[in-house]
């Protein structure tokens, strides 16, 4: 179980340190990529800096995790120069469920955020068009929530 940073992960962590970004302690995921926690109110500012100063223009993936007490947004950024992933995580308490959008920072996030809304019911402040994307417009529930049953009674 590798929880150490990989070579590119170390490079990325070093770059983050050099630019003195307001990011917390670095952790590593199993693939050796650095994980940073960031508070939701700083998310957009950090995102802009990562993009403009570190050159992380490429948002590979964006998703939501549901934990018992909180929602966690996970941003997978790809660095084309250092050829590694940097992972940004932001958490909010469960009852709040509102994140700032990053669509204007990384246009690719648009549909991913819509998907998160569609599946988890997490909303994104400032998103240009937050509506259902994979499910039909009149769908009522948020299927990827842990309390959502596998078989929907009288469902579609």
């Amino acid at each position: 179980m590798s929880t150490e940073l990989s070579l590119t992960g170390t490079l990325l962590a070093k770059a983050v340190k050099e630019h003195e970004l307001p990011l917390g302690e670095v952790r590593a995921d199993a693939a050796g990529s650095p994980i940073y926690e960031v508070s939701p109110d700083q998310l957009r500012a950090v995102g802009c800096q990562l993009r403009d100063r570190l050159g992380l223009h490429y948002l590979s993936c964006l998703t939501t995790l549901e934990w018992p007490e909180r929602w966690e947004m996970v941003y997978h950024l790809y660095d084309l120069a250092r050829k590694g992933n940097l992972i940004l995580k932001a958490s909010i308490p469960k009852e709040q469920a509102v994140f700032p959008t990053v669509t204007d920072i990384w246009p690719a996030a648009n549909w991913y955020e819509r998907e998160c809304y569609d599946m988890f019911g997490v909303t994104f402040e400032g998103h240009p068009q937050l509506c259902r994307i994979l499910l039909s417009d009149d769908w009522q529930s948020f299927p990827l929530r842990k309390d959502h049953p596998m078989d929907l009674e009288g469902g579609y």
Partner: protein
Amino acid sequence: MPELVEVRTEGMVLNMGPQHPSTHGVLRLLLRLDGEVIKSCTPVIGYLHRGMEKLAEHRTYVQYPAIIDRFEYLTAMFTGVLYAMCAERIAGIEVPPRAIWMRTLMLELNRIASHLFWLGTYLLDLGANGLLFYAMRDRELILNLFEEVCGARLLYSYACVGGVRFDNPPSFERHVREFLKIFLDRIRDYESIVTENPVFLERVQEVGCYSPELALQYAVSGPPLRSTGIRKDLRKDQPYLAYDQVDFAVPIGTKGDTLDRYLLRMAEMRESLKIVEQCLDRLPDGNIRVKLPNVVKIPAGEAYLALESPRGEVGAYMVANGTDKCYRLKLRCPSFNHVQFLPVILLGERISDVMAIFGSLDVILPEVDR
């Protein structure tokens, strides 16, 4: 002087799909047209949503590979291997070298099969019926090879956590080598039919151009990104499996138009042939999978891994929590980004070019909708 009458024209809204011969599955494009020129485009997706991510939370690590094959039916090898690799990475399972090389071999064969399918259907989108059958004929050869190994032609369930499920039969190597020999000639045939076809060139040159900056913003990957001249290929950038030990090149395009994407895929097939040959030469003996308990439990942890599939970066973000099912599996598919990118590049193009451009992105809808 006659009275002036105001003449007003209105744009036309055209629903392309979801039942349309060339939307490669069920995609709906809401096109706003001015004559034949596209003023805006809104893709509507989700017609094939099967809740694969929800299923991942309710199926064990042994059951799920059979489902993830359905994620993307043309490159079922890739998604299967990806899922297995994620679980192995989190659990720290060392895969035997033979399994690693065999996975590499299968992935590259699958890449050729997928590109062939694209070639045939793309020419069909452009209105040429003939090439589809040639491409299918050669894809059959690869499917025969797959059938020989795992008994399936489309959905393989080949990779499992800890290795691969099936060993090669003794005749396999000979058959692959025969295929390599045949296929090199066939690529030349294709190039003489297609690449030098003036009508084809007329249709694809300078069509659907976009800048590398735009492509990066929308996280476009695979041949659509490389056609703009950005050399991003995860096989080279983050070598997985045996890709750091084989010799191959990553071709890039120069203009970012449809012709470049076509040329790239043709070049990639040639490179894949090289990799397949090297894999055959260097295929080590030994076990094809590690011995794991009947109920595979993966310790808590998370990993995001991505493979370079024929369509681009296909990734999986797995969060495991120590049970026999994963806590969350997020599938990142290139086609999702490409469909999202589509309205940007379709603006101002003609309706005849919609299929030329959309087809060149090689979008597969089951992958978008999951």
